[in-house]
């Protein structure tokens, strides 16, 4: 992460992903009804929706915040990629809406690649 181009690419990827996570976090707090439909059914059977959405909001906000301040970006990007992957898998019937998340997933993976450090001694 020394090249200026790398810094700019990282900033763009992190900001783009962070905005998506911030949006989900804030919007589901302001308008929970719009987001309740995306929660997988098996989750609603053992956790109350009124409890789940705020917890997920906080989780999304923390991921977005860590991404934007460039804190532990490698691990945060892995978490972000996993989260988006699960969102896509559990909302496959709504692919017309979540197809954009495939782009976000690849952005998160790009960040993982960008921040991956080879173990010392290996070329």
């Amino acid at each position, binding site marked *: 992460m020394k090249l*200026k181009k790398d810094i*700019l690419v990282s900033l763009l990827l992190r900001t783009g992903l962070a905005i998506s996570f911030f*949006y989900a976090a*804030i919007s589901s707090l302001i308008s929970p009804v719009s987001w309740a439909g995306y929660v997988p059914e098996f989750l609603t059977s053992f956790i109350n929706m009124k409890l789940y959405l705020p917890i997920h909001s906080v989780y999304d906000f923390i991921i977005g915040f860590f991404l*934007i301040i460039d804190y532990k970006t490698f691990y945060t990007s892995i978490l972000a990629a996993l989260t988006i992957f699960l969102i896509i898998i559990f909302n496959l019937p709504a692919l017309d809406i979540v197809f954009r998340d495939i782009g976000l997933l690849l952005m998160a993976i790009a960040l993982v690649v960008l921040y991956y450090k080879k173990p010392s001694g290996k070329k």
Partner: protein
Amino acid sequence: MNHQLITLLIIFGILGIINSVFLIRKRVGKMPLTCPIGNDCNKVIESKYNKILFVKNDVLGLIYYILIIVGLYFLLVSKNILVLMQIISGLALLVSLYLFYIQARVIREYCFYCNLATLINLFIFLILVFL
């Protein structure tokens, strides 16, 4: 009120706060800024134009973004505050554009993070106009 636009406004407020805090931390800690697009951000930050009425621009920015987010809370209670917020955001945008002009014509160097703030201010103004 359009909850999507309010969400966007909060996001830009948060981005503005993070950008301002980043600039304040760098300035107070006397850490050099690395410009992602290859300009000399430090020349802009260390110039005499980085303050308005004895207050550094990054601090003014931080106060502005906090005001926007606090203002949103009151906006949900009463819509009367919207015009005031539009005026304040319009003024902030004008100041940002003036500072952009200073970078282009006087300092002849650009600060990426300052211009990021200008972009954020533009979005905040547009969202408040369409709210």
